[in-house]
């Protein structure tokens, strides 16, 4: 990221499959309008579980874009990933011909929190109800959290460096940073991001042990970070994939530089130790700003982690103030994920997509459902706020203790 100018990592494509939109256009429209799509969990087998509200992706037909032979061997989280990767590559105007011509110049990096829960559950049910001979061989790969990276690269015939980042929810941002490093080391294009599908019965049961999970049944009250009524977070499925490309390679082929991945840093402060996350997050922000060579006053908007747990919200607000100083009380902060839920590793990638779109449109999307903020933050609520935006700071923390910060700059900024 502090690479020589010509190996700078640019974002040239965005692909979104989110609860509030299964294309980048519909996602941005819903995000800037501040629509909340949080709703009762309708997934079969989840009806009687204590998790009542989530951000489900509805109206997504994987068969419309993905070949059946890839569908039978993959879980829903990989369906999202393959579709989002297609959208991002189309957006970047990279076609199959580019991969055929230079397969080693394109790689894939994804992050995933839990892998293919629904697929795994189905096969385990076969195992216990009928026996091992009835477990399909694709079980060996489909529920593995690395499946999406593998399947995207196989399907699109990419032979460049491929990897999977396993570093908690903040891994979504770490995957983008990893992509930027791969670009710096010489790969032209990395398709990077995260998608998750944690709304199957087995996966939901796994999450019930999290103290931070909101089990409030009213969608309008279930996820309200930075307020007195904060009661935890609402989970979500879906996510986003981005095309991260060497600026030179992008310019050579005449692609639009939508934004630069300018700086990133990550720290670790321990599972659910939210008070300690203040220092960890602050340190990540400092590292990201330093790498981006960005002064605190240059940050024009902050996309908050917004966990929705009072102690965690306080730690985040203080971390922003610790690093940005007086500017921390003036800089607009937003958390559009209150309208979609928090898709684990996918959440900060969707935030990054929203940040790039915000920079392009000069519009800060609001924080749906949040009204009375009880921290010293200028949280954008109600409606989108027009602003001249050059630099966005995206924050993410994981339940297991990872903290990460990413600085994204507008494509037109030198």
């Amino acid at each position, binding site marked *: 990221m502090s690479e020589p100018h010509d190996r700078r990592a640019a974002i040239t494509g965005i692909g979104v499959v989110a609860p509030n939109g299964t294309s980048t256009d519909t996602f941005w429209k819903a995000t800037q309008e501040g629509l909340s799509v949080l709703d009762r969990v309708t997934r079969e087998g989840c009806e009687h579980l204590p998790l009542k509200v989530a951000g489900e992706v509805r109206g997504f037909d994987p068969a419309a874009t993905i070949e059946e*032979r890839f569908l039978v061997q993959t879980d829903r989280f990989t369906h999202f990933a393959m579709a989002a990767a297609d959208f991002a590559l189309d957006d970047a105007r990279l076609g199959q011909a580019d991969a055929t011509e230079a397969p080693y110049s394109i790689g894939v990096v994804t992050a995933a929190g839990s892998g293919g829960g629904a697929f795994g559950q189905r096969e385990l049910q076969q195992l216990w109800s009928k026996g091992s001979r009835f477990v399909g061989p694709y079980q060996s790969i489909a529920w593995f959290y690395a499946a999406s990276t593998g399947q995207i690269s196989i399907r699109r015939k990419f032979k460049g460096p491929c990897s999977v980042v396993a570093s908690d929810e903040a891994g979504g941002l770490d995957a983008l940073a990893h992509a930027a490093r791969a670009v710096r080391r010489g790969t032209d294009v990395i398709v990077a991001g995260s998608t998750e599908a944690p709304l199957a019965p087995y996966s939901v049961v796994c999450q019930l042990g999290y103290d931070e999970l909101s089990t409030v049944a009213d969608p309008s009250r279930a996820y309200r970070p930075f307020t007195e009524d904060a009661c935890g977070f609402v989970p979500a499925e879906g996510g986003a994939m981005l095309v991260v490309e060497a600026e030179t390679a992008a310019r050579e082929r005449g692609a639009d530089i939508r934004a630069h991945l300018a700086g990133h840093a990550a720290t670790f402060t321990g599972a659910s130790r939210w008070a300690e996350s203040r220092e960890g997050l602050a340190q990540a922000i400092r590292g990201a700003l330093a790498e981006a060579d960005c002064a605190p006053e240059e940050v024009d908007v902050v996309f908050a982690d917004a966990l929705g747990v009072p102690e965690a919200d306080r730690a985040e607000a203080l971390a922003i103030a610790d690093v940005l100083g007086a500017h921390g009380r003036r800089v607009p902060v937003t958390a559009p994920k209150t309208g979609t839920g928090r898709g684990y590793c996918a959440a900060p990638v969707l935030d990054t997509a929203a940040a790039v779109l915000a920079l392009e449109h000069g519009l800060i999307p609001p924080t749906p459902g949040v009204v009375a903020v009880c921290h010293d933050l200028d949280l954008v609520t109600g409606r989108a706020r027009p602003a001249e935006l050059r630099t966005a700071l995206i924050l993410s923390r994981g339940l297991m203790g990872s903290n990460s910060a990413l600085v994204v700059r507008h494509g037109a900024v030198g």
Partner: protein
Amino acid sequence: MSDRITVEELSELMKKAAGVTVSAEELQQRYDSGFDALGVDSLGLLGIVGELENRHGAPMPTDAERSRTPRQFLDLVNSALPAGA
């Protein structure tokens, strides 16, 4: 069951286990094409073998999942089934 495994059944299993749609007629014409060219990977073929074993209640030859073509595959699995209906 001791019926011979037909090209129709293979076509059906390719769809079910590997998500690959090739009609029985087309499969007959592409009898000597590689499974890879038909879009069936090694795990897909393993799944087809597993389905056949469950349906026929009999183990298939150990090399079945290494068959390269539909012809090789059908010759091999049918040689292992008891002859006659």
